[in-house]
């Protein structure tokens, strides 16, 4: 499978999803998205950090400096309660959208 560009507008949702389980630093977030999607989704570093700042400003994540397992200082992002709410909202919107797109595609296949 080749690499695919992210569907526009989904990066925030993906970041928040990865942060659902545990606080992660930026590199780990990118890695996690890549790994779980079986290398299909690649998060550009150029988009990741501006996105993280955006989430910070919105109050959906918090950031703090902590030590990694290898004892390096890294900035860990944690999802906040409003972030969790936002994630739920975005996921349900995204699902609705996918279902809708799915129906349109099926309809087209049947007609074809």
């Amino acid at each position, binding site marked *: 499978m080749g690499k695919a560009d992210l569907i526009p507008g989904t990066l925030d949702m993906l970041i928040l999803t990865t942060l659902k389980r545990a606080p992660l*630093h930026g590199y780990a977030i990118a890695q996690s998205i890549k790994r779980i999607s079986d290398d299909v989704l690649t998060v550009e570093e150029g988009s990741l950090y*501006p996105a993280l700042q955006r989430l910070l400003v919105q109050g959906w994540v918090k950031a703090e*400096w902590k030590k990694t397992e290898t004892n390096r200082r890294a900035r860990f992002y944690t999802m906040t309660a409003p972030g969790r709410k936002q994630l739920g909202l975005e996921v349900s919107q995204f699902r609705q959208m996918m279902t809708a797109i799915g129906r349109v595609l099926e309809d087209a296949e049947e007609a074809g």
Partner: protein
Amino acid sequence: MSALGRLARKIAIRLRGERFGGELDEEMAFHREQMEQELQAGGMSTEESRRAAMRQFGNATRMQERSREVIGFRLETVVQDLRFAVRQLRRNPGFTVTAILLLALGMGASLAIFAFVDAALLQPLPYAQPNRLVEVTESLALFPRGNLSYPDYVDWKRMNSVLSSFDVYNGTSYLLQTPTGVVPVPGLSVSAGFFRTLGVQPVLGRDFHPDEDAVSAPATALLSYAAWQQRFGGRRDVIGETVKLSGSPVTIIGVLPASFAFAPRGNAAIFGSLQATGECATRRSCHNLIGVGLLKPGVTISAALANMKAIAAQLERQYPDSNRGQGASVIPLAQSITGDIRPILMILMCGAGMLLLIACVNVSNLLLVRSETRRQEMAVRSALGASRVRLARQFVTEGLMLVLAGTAAGSLLADAAIRILHGMIAKDMLDNMPYLRGMGFSPHVWMFAGAVAALAVAVFSLAPLLRLPGAQLRERLSEGGRGAAGPLWKRLGANLVIAELAIAVVLLASAGLLTKSFWRLLHVELGFRPDHVATLEVGLPHAEFAKNEQQVAFGRTLLDRVRMLPGVESAALTTLPPVSCNCNTGWVRFVGKPYNGVHNEVNDRQVSAGFFHTVQAQLVRGRWFTEEDDASHPKVVVINEAFAQKYFAGEDPIGKKMGDTALKPDSLRTIVGVTANIKDGALDSEEWPTEYEPFAQDPSTYFSMMVRTAQDETTILPELAAAIHQMNPGVGAQDETTMTQRIHDSYSAWLHRSAAWLVGGFAALALLLSVIGLYGVIAYSVSQRTREIGVRMALGAQQSAVHWMILREAGWLTGIGIAVGLACSIGAAELMGSLLFGVRAWDLPTLAAVAAVLGFSALLASALPARRAARVNPVEALRAE
């Protein structure tokens, strides 16, 4: 997510400042390291992995920037805007300096006037509960606020249910015995609860005890802080000391705070307890007190007034002889104190506001013209990707900087103006306006400045915003910025100039009317000759001069002595010199005329025999007083023409007899003369009926001496005071001045003079600014129409036709401006009310003169651009395409 929360978080991130960049760097460095490690684990060399990581990571700086954009208010771009604005403003110093000067002028004028408004009208009285303090007085047909009599005060105090405390005061002058002699000091005689009602506590010693104003109580007094410092050297042991006031011993019990001043007698140095002694205190018809009350919580002025009126009505029924027609008046104390300065401040505030408006209009016009010439710049920036918001912000930034600079310069100007205006107020007038003492840049004034500045920024950024390129962007670019002025701007600019000219007309007309009023005031018929007359006030100590004969004898000796001084032509005494006030009145009744109990209120003055001769009044009928008219001869009286017209219309008053309301035999006097009206009251007041009685028949311990001299009257002033002190060092002499000075310093003269000067100043500036504005608009219009004019001339238009065309354009604007302005100025003049004297709002000569002045100035302003237009070389104009 609320926008506010986002803003707060942005600010929080921002506040961490420098660390933000560092954190991002560190975070990204960590990210790259992790990538390198992973690549190395996959078998790459250190060097290779580093390069690969760098490659994948991309441009770190760009990423930083993008991250910053998310969190910032785009501070960097704000700084960019600021830098750009400064560059723009510096590139065009003529525009910048003009705009800042205009703003500084408008701001300076309005801030200075507002500082006065704030001090006089907005800042409450410096007392504990300023909003509950009221002035309580009696009220008559002639005096809406007339003094209280002591027995009435006692009844009002006892019977009212609306005041939690009620006290009275009476302005007085004490003769203070000092080691170097007797000095008259201004004072206030107050009932015992006076300071508790105001909510003022002494800083040293104690207040009066509640019953310390009883007749039996020993006389006590408090000192003002200034008097304590100046007259008693600030000694703390002054408390308990006994001083001699007007010949009687009085014990000092306290010192009032430095901040305390009581405006109706702001220079009062000694506050004595008001004891109900003397004949006046027992007589309901002797009105000499003013009441100050503290409203009970929740009681309104109108409720208090209703209550007092009911009491007054009851007393009127009970004592018809003395209380007939004596109503009640209750007004806020603040109003009673600043009421007379209110109209002029309002006028000046309006004048300053209009000047500010003109200044703003001019700056807006400049900005509009400038934005017109910057259309290309804006179009280019917009084409290069600047958003509309960003372009708009550029204008806001530039407006902000202009206004900031203008406000700063304006504040300096205002500070200077406040000092100058403060200096324009005469010293003793200032004494009675203690609220102006701490005047200056109060928080209110700063807030006002802030509000005006914010408004100016809004206007200045909005004006050019109207010109922001929208859809027609490409059109603008291709036009090369050489097109004709946009119709929108032309209309807006022209309308602004019309408004400007109209405002200038209003200010000019107001200034004209006020100046004419002032001129009329100075040339009002005085009925006497004020030049070469020196005056001073004399106070005899009561204890030493208790008997009438003693007072008369002193007066006679004094006059004899003064007449011997070189250069003195004549000298006289009067209990109240002319041009003081329509006050000190008495009630009269005529023998042989029906009397229905109405109080015939007339001015009452006691004058020595030489008075009419000294002031050079005009005798209409009968005779003046002679030295014979003394206590041993029948009582006589001289009345003025107003008196004769009111009470003896169509008959000869000479020989008629008049007396008090009961026509008691010892009050009866025979009218022996009628004088032409002598201006007794203020310059702008009406002539009241006045009776003059011989000083020798009804003397007083406090009177003025008037001395007519052959030489300059100021030179004799020191000799007059010296003569009095030589005769008796216990007698006080004060307020040495000349009659002309007295008139010059009188309140009405000051009021009209300052109104005329200040509004005149505003008008001159307004004229200048509006004419500059007109010039700007016409000149700009000519420069924009160069091509059109070139075409016209190429097609055969004569120079004179082009000249005429431009003048006509200016003429239209001026004509409309003048017409609108004249209509508005009649309305404005109606608002000036009492400030106009002897002039109607629609005074045609003034309005015509204003129209002529403005029309002529406008013609001058447009002649220059019109000439330039007529000299346009059609070949050059068309080749410039």
